C-alpha cells in the first residue's frame, strides 16, 4: 500500500475541510471543518510514523509522531473549549452564529 494513498486521503480530508471553511456560514460548522483539517493532519502524521517505523531500524522510530498527534488532540480539545465559548458569547449577543453578519469591522 503506497504511502501516497494515505497522503492523498489526508489531503482530500484537508481540502474538504478547507472547502467547508470557505463555503459554510455557520460558525460552528466552520469550526467543525477546521477540526476535520486537524484530523487530516493527524492521519498524515500517523501514516508517516508508520512509514518511518519501517524505514528505520529501531522500533520506536515513528512513535514521536504519534506523541505529536496526541498533543494535537490535547490542543484541539483546549481550542474547542475556547472556541465554543466565544461562539456562545457571540450567540448571546446577536442570536446568530452566521459569519456573514460579522461585518461591523471592515475597510
Amino acid at each position, binding site marked *: 500500500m503506497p504511502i501516497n494513498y494515505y497522503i492523498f486521503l489526508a489531503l482530500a480530508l484537508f*481540502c474538504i475541510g478547507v472547502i467547508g471553511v470557505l463555503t459554510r456560514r455557520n460558525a460552528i460548522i466552520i469550526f467543525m471543518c477546521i*477540526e476535520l483539517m486537524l484530523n487530516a493532519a493527524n492521519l498524515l502524521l500517523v501514516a508517516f510514523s508508520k512509514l518511518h517505523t519501517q524505514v528505520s531500524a529501531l522500533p520506536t522510530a515513528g512513535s514521536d509522531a504519534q506523541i505529536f498527534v496526541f498533543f494535537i488532540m*490535547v490542543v*484541539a480539545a483546549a481550542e474547542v*473549549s475556547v472556541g465554543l465559548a466565544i461562539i456562545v458569547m457571540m450567540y448571546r449577543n446577536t442570536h446568530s452564529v452566521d459569519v456573514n453578519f460579522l461585518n461591523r469591522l471592515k475597510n
Partner: protein
Amino acid sequence: MSITQILFWLLSALAVGGAIMVVASKSPVHSILFLIITFFAISGHYILLNAQFLAIVNVIVYAGAIMVLFLFVVMLMNLNEESAPPQKNKYILYGGTIAGASLMLVLVAALKQSSQGRYLMDINSGTGGLIENLGKLLFTDYVFPFEISSVLFLSAMIGAVVISKKEA
C-alpha cells in the same frame, strides 16, 4: 486484494464521504453526526497503521467528548436549520469549492512525481503505537511538552471562565 486493502478502501470511502456530507448537509446536527462517522473511519485507519492508542484516544476525545460538546452547543442554540436567508454572494460558494479543489489538485500533482511517495508499507505490524511505548516516551522524553500543555489547558480554562461568566 488483501483484507487490509479492502479495509483501507472502505475506511477511506467512509471518511471522505462523511467529510463531504459534513460540508454538504444543511442541518448542523447532521453535519456533526457525519463528522463523528468520519472520525470513526479515521480511527479505523489508525488501527490499520498500528496506532492503537491513538485510535482509542481519537474515539474517546474526538468522537466522544468534543463532538458531544459540539452537539450540545448546537442543541442549546437549536439552530438545526440555517436560519439566515440563502447565501447572497454565491461566488464565495463556487470560489471556495474551486479553490479547495485546485489546492488538492496542485498538491497531488506535485506529490505524484515525488520518489518518497512510492514507499510500500505493510499494514498492521509493528508495536510503535502501543500504550506502554508511548507512555514511556511521554513521561521521559516528552515530559516537558506534557507539562507545558498544562499551561495551555489552564489558559483555555481561564478563557472559558472569563468569556462565559456573566458580567456582574
